[in-house]
């Protein structure tokens, strides 16, 4: 079996997924998410069914925003307001990495079963997308640092983007546009709230956010 070039870069993403389970500090996690964002936005170029000039420009704009602008601005933000760098795990790192390994195996197994015709030649596409999605959710659940949670959310969106833009050509641009809008506005508002959390509690540990229950 010959690996398609797409699969080669996707294998790096899978590795970075594993890394994100073990990342203990926020800057490392930001780099990982940025890398995944770049690769996820590049993949449609390789699978491009019929690329128009507008489409290519749009893809590059997406790449710039997801891969560079958003991670950079988060990085600058945490430098500026001196937010704590530890991700405050609820589930420990060793257990997390083990979870990650199990997940990748499971994702590969499930993707084999699904058998989607339009992407069957790219072996790693679906496993990577599933892995990104679940890892994002894992970070949302198992990390208490609010920035790690936002990064988890972005990772999840990366996974959906990978599926959404490759599985079907039909709605591709509107999916791209939607996710882009979502991630831009969503992350912006999250950042504003984060700043306020930091100002109110002098920390971004979500353990402080425990007054509202039931």
């Amino acid at each position, binding site marked *: 079996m010959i690996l398609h070039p797409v699969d080669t870069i996707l294998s790096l993403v899978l590795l970075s997924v594993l890394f994100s389970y073990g990342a203990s500090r926020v800057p490392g996690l930001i780099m990982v998410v940025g890398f995944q964002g770049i690769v996820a936005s590049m993949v449609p170029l390789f699978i491009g069914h019929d690329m128009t000039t507008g489409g290519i420009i749009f893809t590059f704009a997406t790449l710039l925003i997801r891969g560079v602008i958003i991670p950079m601005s988060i990085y600058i933000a945490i430098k500026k307001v001196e937010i704590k760098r530890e991700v405050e795990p609820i589930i420990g790192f060793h257990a997390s990495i083990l979870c990650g390994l199990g997940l990748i195996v499971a994702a590969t197994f499930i993707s084999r079963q699904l058998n989607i015709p339009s992407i069957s030649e790219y072996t790693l596409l679906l496993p990577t997308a599933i892995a990104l999605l679940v890892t994002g959710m894992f970070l949302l659940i198992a990390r208490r640092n609010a920035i790690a949670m936002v990064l988890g959310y972005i990772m999840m969106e990366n996974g959906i983007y990978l599926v959404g833009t490759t599985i079907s050509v039909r709605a591709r641009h509107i999916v791209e*546009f*939607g996710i882009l809008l979502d991630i831009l506005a969503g992350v912006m*508002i999250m950042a504003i709230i984060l700043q306020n959390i930091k100002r109110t509690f002098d920390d971004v540990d979500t353990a402080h956010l425990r007054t509202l229950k039931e």
Partner: protein
Amino acid sequence: MVEIIFLTPFLTGILAFFLPKAVGRQLLVGTGAIHLFLSLLLWKNRPQAYFDGYFAVTPEGLLSLLVISLLFFLISIYTISYLEESGIQKENIFTGFMLLFLSTMTMVTLSDHIMVMWIAIEATTLASAPLIYTHRSSASLEATWKYILICSVGIAMALLGSVFITLAMDIGNVDAPLSFSSLTNVAKTLDPVWLKAGFVFILVGYGTKMGLAPMHTWLPDAHSEAPSPASALLSGVLLNCAYLGIFKTNKIMHAAGLNDFSGTILIVFGLISILAAATFILKQNEYKRMLAYSSIENMGIIAFGTGIGGIGVYGAIICMIHHSLIKSSLFLSSGNILLGYGDRYIKNTGDMVRRMPKTFVAFFGGFAGISGFPPFGIFIGEFFIIVGAFRTGHYIAAGIFILSLCVIFAGFANQVMKISFNSSSDDSGENLDSIKPIGLKEKASMVWPQYILLLTSLILCFYMPDTLYQTIIDAVAALGGGFK
């Protein structure tokens, strides 16, 4: 041109950010009036949309749109007085986002394209999050954080579901526009497995936004921390918008002959929501949270009715309209209580019948309506749903349904009685001084919107205009609903 109806509040909303307070308030009511006028016009003419594949005027959309317009107009009148009394900081941000919120919700009711629907529903989250954070307390911060994170993740699931539906088209070799109406026409040729997967993800995603348990955890926090006019909008119309997404997807499922599958899931989620509301409403000590749990209950009822099918769908739509009217009036009244007593806990209120008589009438009337007393619309809706459940043989589900409604009624009544009649703190006479004076004069503009909402609901029980009745029948016919 249909699109003008959501572009107007969008433009005025952006304008409101830069205008002084007084102008912003006028703008709020003015836009509300224009919006109501436009939606009545739309209701009468039912024109084609300019962007045809993306927007369309559908019966179920029209129903939600009219509810949104009416509610927003009345709420905006209330909001002016509320803003004067409550002293919210950065008022132009509040009014601006109220208008943007109106714009995004209107867009949801008119969107026909699956992805545009998704974008519009996500936009409602983004436009309403700043409203919840209006009071700038640490509790409202937490509520906003929870709201935006849980809803964004939920709606991401809905996006995945929408992608699965496009996959169902590819596998079924269907070449049609990706709009709800055209998909309903070709539903039989879609791949059933991926369609089912798509429906489940969309239900979980939009269900999060609609407040179905167990994804409801953001709802009580957001509704209790937002300023009362915003709570009224959140509960009265935002939840309906999310329901609209589920309703339209369910239409595709029904056309594809998979309504047993989708119905069962809707019944299960509906019952879980009603049960969750029944569990939590009993021990609530804040009145706005109590109202929020009542919203979860009603969304459960609506999902349950939709799942039952037949006459149940008709009941669900009736419940949806009346819930919007009554619950928004209750939330506005709760704003008066909050301003009057200056406290959000039930134990610190009491004796409202004498201390705030006008608000009492609105609050108690709303309570009677929402808990399903016979003349009110919720009663009629629930009655149809129960009849539908028995007709289709869902005896156990109907039993759980009725039992939970009784529990909720008991819990709700207990708390409302405390707020209205409890005079524990002043009948002994000695701690009379400790009672704070009521900090609110009950102005006409702070009670009449509630009265009008309740009256509208009451009138609709006895007299329903033919065009409204026909629109409801058209909407439910696509789900096999109606009186047959």
